[in-house]
Each structure stands twice: as structure tokens, then as C-alpha cells.
């Protein structure tokens, strides 16, 4: 029942994000019928065009932002709307309330990564182009694993920051601040440390510079570190949720 509750609370966000992602992927690929190859780069491979528009373009931003939004909610929000007493009256502890929300948010985030995986190869075929499914799968795996960081960060924010809009603002600013830190400090010299590079291979050796396909072995160490960071953030969120006394 707690999973169903978490789903009901987040399904509008998930469905809206899914709709916009699908719409954008579909329209981008359909436009390739007209604007591909670009006039200034007639030799650009189709796969590189897709990478620029989908995996390194607006879809990546929508995905990061929505992964953050999916992690929001929970008891702090219910406290504001006055319904937390009903939830706390359930015969479960706070951690049992938190973890179904985390699992549902992670599942929704992972499902969002499936949208380009389905739409890009299918829509490409419909315009007479080919995008290899195996590479779409590899990018989906990268998006899903790095996405755990943004979901976990927003779960932590939703517990630490009271006020729905304040937690929303903090959740949106988290990836923006991360991006600024990774691009504006000495960390810029280590592209493997940035989840933004790991999610689409930007500046990393596994991405083919010409075709923009994920040809090389995936950066498993970086992906593992994303999982560890995510686990640490969720651990902090659990500790914080456990200590709340309202």
C-alpha cells in the first residue's frame, strides 16, 4: 500500500515528464528528415546528430531536472498540507515510509530512460535512418545509474528543506551548482568525476569522437561511484528522517 501511495503522489510528475520527453525525442528525430545533415556539417554522421540533440541536448537537461523532481515529496510536504498525522498514524515507522518513496522514484526515473531507448531507434527507422539499439541501451544504462544521484539528492533535500517550493528550488539548484563546480574548478580536469560527462560520454574515451556512439567499455568505476554517492545521500536522508520529531 505504501508503494501505491508513493505512486499516487508522484505519478503526475512522472507522466508529464514522460510525455514531454517522448514529444521532444519524436519531434527531434522527425525534424532530422528536413534538417539533417546540417548545412555547415554535411559529413556529420546521423548518430552524432542524435547524440547532440538527445543525449547531450535538452533531453539530458529534462532528465536531470525530472529525476530531481521525482525525489521530492514525503512527510515534510504532508506536514505542510496537514495530512502527515494520518500518514504517521499508519503502523509503520518513518523509514518504512521513506523507502517505498525512494524505490518508486528510482523506478520512475529508470523508466524515463527507456523512452529515448524506444523512441530514438523506432523514430529513426521511420525516417529511413538507423540508430543502433545496443547503443541506445548503453546510454539508457548511463542515464539510469547517474540519475540515482539526482533522485537521492532530491530525497535528501525534501527532508532537509521544509516548504514545497523551497525544496523544489533547492532540488533544481543542486544539479546547476554541481555543473558549475565540475566545470569551473580544478575538477574540470577530471571529466570522469562529473556525472554530466558520465551520463552521455562527453569528454570521455568510451565515446567515439566521430560517430558519438558508446563504442568503448562503459566507465564502471565512475558508475559505481555514482551508486556509492547515491547510497550515502540516501543514508543521510534516512538518518535525518529518523530524527524528525513532528
Amino acid at each position: 500500500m505504501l508503494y501505491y501511495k508513493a505512486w499516487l503522489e508522484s505519478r503526475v510528475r512522472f507522466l508529464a515528464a514522460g510525455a514531454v520527453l517522448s514529444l521532444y525525442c519524436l519531434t527531434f528525430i522527425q525534424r532530422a528528415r528536413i534538417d539533417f545533415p546540417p548545412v555547415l556539417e554535411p559529413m556529420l554522421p546521423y548518430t552524432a546528430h542524435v547524440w547532440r540533440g538527445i543525449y547531450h541536448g535538452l533531453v539530458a537537461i529534462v532528465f536531470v531536472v525530472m529525476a530531481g523532481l521525482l525525489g521530492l515529496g514525503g512527510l515534510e510536504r504532508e506536514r505542510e498540507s496537514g495530512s502527515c498525522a494520518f500518514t504517521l498514524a499508519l503502523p509503520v515507522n518513518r523509514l518504512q515510509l521513506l523507502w517505498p518513496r525512494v524505490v518508486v522514484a528510482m523506478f520512475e526515473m529508470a523508466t524515463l530512460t527507456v523512452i529515448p531507448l524506444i523512441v530514438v531507434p523506432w523514430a529513426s527507422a521511420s525516417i529511413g535512418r538507423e540508430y543502433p539499439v545496443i547503443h541506445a541501451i548503453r546510454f539508457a544504462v548511463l542515464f539510469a545509474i547517474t540519475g540515482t544521484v539526482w533522485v537521492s539528492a532530491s530525497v535528501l533535500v525534501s527532508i532537509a528543506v521544509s516548504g514545497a517550493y523551497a525544496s523544489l528550488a533547492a532540488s533544481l539548484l543542486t544539479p546547476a551548482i554541481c555543473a558549475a563546480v565540475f566545470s569551473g574548478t580544478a575538477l574540470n580536469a577530471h571529466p570522469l568525476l562529473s556525472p554530466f560527462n558520465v551520463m552521455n560520454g562527453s569528454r570521455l574515451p568510451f565515446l567515439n569522437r566521430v560517430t558519438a556512439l558508446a563504442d568503448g567499455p562503459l566507465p564502471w568505476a565512475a558508475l559505481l561511484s555514482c551508486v556509492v554517492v547515491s547510497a550515502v545521500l540516501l543514508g543521510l536522508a534516512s538518518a535525518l528522517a529518523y530524527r524528525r520529531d513532528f
Partner: protein
Amino acid sequence: MLWYKAWRESRSRFFLAAGAVTVYCLTVLVRARSGFPLPQNPRVPYSAFIWSEFYAPFRAVAFSFIALVLGLGGLQRERGSGTAPFTLALPVGRGQLVATRVFVGLAELIGVLLIPIVVVPGLSPVLAHQTYPASQSVQYAALFLSWGIVWFAGGLLWSVLFRGDFTAATAAVLTPFAYMAVYGASRGDQRFPVANPFAMMSGGLDRSVGGRMLLTEPLPWDVMLVLAVVAAALLAGVWRITARQSF
């Protein structure tokens, strides 16, 4: 008192946004002290470096989020949290509540925009040992504000239409992306290049911007006027919907 109420409801968002923008501005300028000229491309002028850090399209996306989030709030939200009856018991009309919310939100939006206007030209000589013309900061801020008020009005409209906090927030955050999807699908970049928000905010309508990324042509006042009218229409819609709501 309504002003104070609107300020109290939105100040945490404003402080978060203003704090992040301030820290970002200072970080970029401090980095420019040792990192400019760029080692990989030493011929890039300081004005182009500033453009890429503050006014490039991705920065316009970030500012659009700030405008949308500052626009959220209003009676529907209070209805969700159960405080709407107290607000509605005040001896003021719903229009006054909306108008106050709009003015405070726009003031906060302008406040966020003022930060780079003050910090970049003011602290560039001190922190980065470079100069950047204040007039350019003002002009880029005007371009950002022209679409910013549209996003702000859009955020307010969503929060008037939807009762759930996160439903309105999701609709608001996804608005620019849905707009870009529709814009792309209708081949807007070829048919209506002036309607590309992020290109316009980044000075893309100035055809002689050049490699220095300095605006040399007059601001596109006609486009900005159209955007002001769009924002006014959205805000009028907000006022009308709020006035007609029956709770």
C-alpha cells in the same frame, strides 16, 4: 501587509536563487583570475568568456527555471495546505492578492538579475583584472528579463490552474521544454527565429554580435514589446481565473 505576506511566502526561493547566482558569479570571476585567457584558446576575448559563462543559452535555461519557480504560489496552493480561508477572510479582493503576488515576484526576479549586473562589471577589475562594460550587462539582463516575465507569468498560471504543489511545479518546469519541442516540430528555427527564447536571451537576434559577443545593435524592442504583451495576457488570465474560482 499583503506585500509582506507575498514576500514571506517566496523569500526562501528568492534567497536560494540569489545565493546560488552570487556564488556562481564570484566563482567565475575568481576562476578568471588564473584561468583567463583560456589555455585551450587564448584568443577568446574576456567579453566572450563572460558571455559563455553568464549569457549563453544554457544559462538562459537556468534563469528560465528561476523565473518559473519564483512564479509559483497563490491561492490554489493555500487551498491545498488549508490556509486559503484565512487569506480569503482578509478584507481585500482576489485581484489585490494576485497583483501583490505578481509585483513581489517580479521584484524578486529583477533582484536576481541585478546580481550579475552589479557583480560582473563591478568586480571584474578586482577579481579577474579585466573589464566588462556595465552597459552590456544591462542589455543582456533586459533580454533575460523579456522572456523571464513570460516564464514567471507561465509559472503563476500553472499554480493557479493546479492545486498540487508539485503538479504545478512540474508543469512549470516542463513548460520551456514542451515549448521547444513544439517550436522545433513547427520548424520554428526557420520560420520564426525570433520566437526561440534561449537564442533571443543570449543575444542571438543581434546579427553583428561578432566573436566578442558584445551587443552592438539596438535591443529588439518590438520583440520585447510582444513578449510583454504575452506576459500581460497570461497575468490577466491568472487574475481572471483567480477571480472566478469559487472556493
